[in-house]
């Protein structure tokens, strides 16, 4: 299970373990091959990019995932305002050369597929549907022992971070 922890103050902490990350990346690679997509991004609903595949060198994928998350969030609010109870499950943006297909993966994550207009939407939909099932399964992978937040963020880390901020942010 992907560790989605509720902390004492109610905030949500998402921890992705090594096995999950590997499994997710494998699914994205397969999807990229099958669809010949220009780029595939997997991100969480707060806009955080998790993994990507494809020709992403010319694309600012960090920004793209932040924008895509906002796209989902905005249309979700729009759905509420127009009286649609369910969230929109997918978003499709049609361009001249490239199309963008966005689909949610459970409630907490989403997939972005950027593809050439020569590829049919139907093809993307079929393969993406399968990929989403595989991704949901991947998120169920158990992690290794010892992959805990406590090990990531200790007092030492905090103090060294403080020093690094003082050195770089001035």
């Amino acid at each position, binding site marked *: 299970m992907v560790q989605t922890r509720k902390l004492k103050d109610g905030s949500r902490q998402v921890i992705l373990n090594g096995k999950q990350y590997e499994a997710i990346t494998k699914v994205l690679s397969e999807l990229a091959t099958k669809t010949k997509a220009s780029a595939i991004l997997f991100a969480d609903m707060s806009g955080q990019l998790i993994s990507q595949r494809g020709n992403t060198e010319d694309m*600012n994928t960090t920004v793209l995932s932040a924008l895509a998350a906002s796209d989902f969030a905005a249309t979700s609010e729009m759905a509420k305002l127009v009286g649609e109870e369910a969230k929109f499950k997918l978003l499709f943006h049609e361009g001249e050369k490239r199309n963008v297909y966005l689909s949610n993966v459970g409630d907490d994550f989403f997939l972005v597929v950027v593809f050439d207009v020569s590829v049919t939407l139907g093809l993307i939909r079929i393969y993406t549907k399968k990929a989403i099932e595989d991704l949901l399964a991947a998120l169920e992978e158990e992690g290794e022992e010892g992959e805990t937040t406590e090990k990531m963020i200790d007092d030492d*880390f905090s103090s060294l971070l403080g020093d690094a901020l003082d050195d770089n942010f001035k």
Partner: protein
Amino acid sequence: MFINWALQEINLKIVYYGPGMSGKTTNLEYIHSKLDPSLKGELVSLKTKEDRTIFFDFMQIEVGRIKGKKPKFNLYTVPGQVYYASSRKVILNGVDGIVFVADSQPHRMEANIETLLDLEENLKQEGHSLDNFPWVIQYNKRDLPGVEPVEVLQKRLNFFNVPHFEAVAVRGDGVFDTLKAVINLVVRHVQDQL
């Protein structure tokens, strides 16, 4: 907060909140202009023709590796104008820390208060509360004539006695101090929750 064990990355989301034209975008623009290229991504600003933020500004920054781990900070601003209330709400999804940028001018006090109440309301929907969440207040535009004294701003806005900073964001005064404080606060807060 998002932790990726495979890449040893810690990702935090920090949102700059405040009424229209208080200086949220200016803060990010200054940070972007001063940071070493190796530590910053592109600053993306979604604006109206009148140069007002319509949805958000976004920028990712980092400080390199610390004990083998890579902390990354996703900075967002919200649109300040009253009619963008729904847009502000969506930007708060997954927020880890907040910088409230207040406008020090007397005629903007009501807007500061209204936006602070709006923030409290939206945070509640995310399962947080201002009295138990890492945030700081920045009193911006301290250089303008006739601004409210800090004591007055403190009394009217800082009910929870969070760290506060005086700033002149267009010049960069107080901008990095504010950012460093909120980051340190977020990390300490995470540790306290464990």
